[in-house]
């Protein structure tokens, strides 16, 4: 559970920081690094990454939309066949979640590929240096 939270926080904070200066895919290196460095089962790793990406993008979009009183999301919604602002926020959050989730998962499984664990792939183990 501790590593789940650690991964979640790492992706959230790293994701936030990466967005100053890195294009939209900033979550990818952050997720890969978090997955590589912090041990989790694949499901947990994915979930932690997904949740962090989902919340980061979702809340950020929500905050901007709220301050804007939905002026822009109403117009963008029309560009996409009349989607509402909540749907746009949900799409944004899902994109952030999926990218971050798969990035953490890839990082984690990539680590396993490079450094095969001794007893079965997902036995509990310490984090290696």
């Amino acid at each position, binding site marked *: 559970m501790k590593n789940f939270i650690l991964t979640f926080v790492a992706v959230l904070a790293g994701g936030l920081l990466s*967005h100053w200066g890195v*294009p*939209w*895919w*900033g979550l*990818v290196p952050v997720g890969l690094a978090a997955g590589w460095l912090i041990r989790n089962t*694949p499901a947990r790793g*994915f979930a932690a990454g997904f949740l962090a990406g989902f919340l980061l*993008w979702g809340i*950020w*979009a929500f905050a*901007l*939309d709220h*301050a*804007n*009183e939905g*002026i*822009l*999301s109403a*117009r*963008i*919604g*029309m*560009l996409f066949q009349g989607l509402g602002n909540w749907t*746009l926020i949900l*799409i*944004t959050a899902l*994109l*952030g979640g*999926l*990218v971050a989730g*798969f*990035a953490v*998962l*890839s990082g*984690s*499984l*990539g680590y*396993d*590929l490079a450094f*095969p664990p001794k007893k079965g*792939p997902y036995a509990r183990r310490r984090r290696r240096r």
Partner: protein
Amino acid sequence: MRLIRFLFAFLPLAGLVWALSVPLKAGDKTLPALGRFFSPFSGFWQNAESANAPDAIPIQAKLPALKGPVEVVWDDMMVPHIFAGDPNDAAMVQGYIHASHRLFQMDIVSRQTAGRLSEVIGPRTLEADRLIRRRGLPWAVERNWKSVQESPRTVQLLEAYAAGVNAYIDQLSPATLPLEYKLMNFEPERWSPERSLFVVANMIDALNNRDNDLAATNSLAVFGRDTFNYLYPNWNAKQTPIIPDTGQWADIQPLVRQETVSGQTAPGSAPPERSELSPNRDLNGSNNWAVAGSRTRSGAPILCNDTHLPLRLPHVWYVQQIQTPQFNSYGIVVPGVPLLAIGFNSDVAWGFTNCSHEVADWYRLQWTDGGKTTYLLDGQPRKAELRVEEIRVKGAPAVRDTVRYTDWGPVVYDQPDHPLHDCAYRYVAHDPMKPESLYEFLNISSARNYDDYRKAIPGLEALSQNVAFASRNGAIALTVQGKFPVRQNGQGRFVQDGTAWANNWAGYIPASQLPAMRNPSRGFVYSANQHSTPPTYPYYYIGNFDHSRGRRIYQRLENMRDITIDSMKSIQLDNYSQRAADGLHALLRRVKREQLNDSEKKWLSALEQWDARYQPDQIAPSLFEMWFDSTYVHTWDEMENLRRQKTAVLFPEHWRFCELLETDSASVFFDELSTPRREEAGDIVTAGFHKMAARAEKMPSDSLQWHTFKGFVLKHLAMLDAFSRLDVSVGGSRNSPNAISSNHGPTWRMIVEMGAPIRALGVYPGGQSGNPGSRYYDNFVDAWARGDYFDLVFLSQSGEQNPRILARQTFTHGS
């Protein structure tokens, strides 16, 4: 095994990143890459301005080349009031501010006139780019720029402006890029003085580019001279020209003798030519007037202006106040140019309407070789200059296009089946501007009196305008300004013979002989795109003149005493149409009532009670339009048949149609060609009524209401519905003083009372910010539609207190 597991995670990731990174194709449009577009850190969400705090105010910047601090005060209309110690500093801050609110618009407008849209949009705009280049606009701007470089102060002004725009562009990040760039996948191009000249050329071309030469030539060939004169007279005796004849032209000796042109026009026996040209694209017009203190309640003159142009978001104009040691003035600018176009200062106010003289002609060439490089002029072979236009196209190879330039001008159409193929184009906007023109016109901002105004307006150059004027010391005036070719009688109405140099324009009408009036005893001056003068004016001219708004405005002004700002509003917002009043009278007179059934009589009585006002919730205006149109089309089936065969042909003007209905109901033109019997006006009018009634019966009553029937839309510049306003309900019509048609109308309603202090009102259908994510994008639209105005905040100095001030900022020197 582990590899497979890894790939199960990595391949979806790679796929996802790829899918979100490539622009999507939807039909012929591309949508942005979804990852970048949806990212709340760099995508569209970043353009969502906070609705409460005035996020729309540009961030305060240091501008390296500023000579001193520049204060900018923002009011609640998001209008900047710029206080600078130097005109170039003022220009630089304008550049920064225009860019921060309207960068995409500036970029697109300048690209459009440069024929460089395809670079960023793709093959879709290639033909438009090719045509504007072949019409010689970029060529002319190159020449203008060469000329302007002889005036160091003009260059400095334009360079300062460009530096301001570029300072804004340089601080942009992928996140703060204007929304349209994110959507359309390109980046803003840096600004330059030439790009400002392209924006100027765009305005001149939008207002001056019109000619009916081809259609007139074809009509003359088909109908012969007598019928031609019968169908298309130049002068409507009912109209009230802008400048009446008071004997002021008696002494003018025109530069050419007024002889009727005979041999010079293209031969009348030539077969009609095919054309895809639209017969009438001329909607741009405007109203302006000034009333003297003798007619106003306050005793101060009042100047009014509403400029009718295509209505778009972002709006064509930007509103601002500029104060420098030389002047303190308020008004509208075209983003891209650091000059007030229309406005006022503490001493004078001025306003424009378009002057509809035709200033473009076509000359048929005679080539002496198959390769079309040499043409005949006065019996001598002349070599055409070849200019190669290279048009870069996004996602496709560049296109090279060779344009032949003759002594007349460029050969515009190279398609062999185009009727103007082998014709050279002579256009007043091709003449290079004088080096100091922009500066000259800048001086209108510092005008103190009539003389200053007269000195400044020739700076408008080829932009032909009726310029109204009022001053605080009580003067009112109106001047017709522009470069108007001196023509022989009849010259330029038809495609001309390009083998004789004698057919060239004999110069331009001298400014001192252009129609003008000052302080007339009637106490008002006005214009609404009608004829400049009665036919007694010694120079011949042609054009597309409006016959409807001018008559109405004249009647209203003539009968008005004790004028207030509210009575001025009532003219600007007047939905009455003189064309409808005349048309309705003629139609009702000719319709055969005994042939109408009971349900048709219901429509008839609605029309009989109609007062020719295009009110938004009435159905009579819609009925009238349908009736008038169908009667018109059936009457002119001779022309309609030609048009269907893609032959450009003149249609008689509406006022002439009404006149013929009233006075010549047995005219052969009322006979329909497709029927064996011989119809007269009453038959056509009644048949038109049946058609209208049949159509009206099928329509639900709410779609018969004028505002729905008209289908008003306020479209985004790039035609994106999502950024347009499609829900605005307005009255008025093309021929009403309140000239709102479906996508065209009053772009800046302004009323200025020249008292102490000055009181000014204004409104436009848009908002100061060009950002669709800003509440200042369209915040004036509803007020404009309702007919409300805003009181304009005119500050005497930067420190002045005013409850409507939102924020103050200072731009400083620095890097």
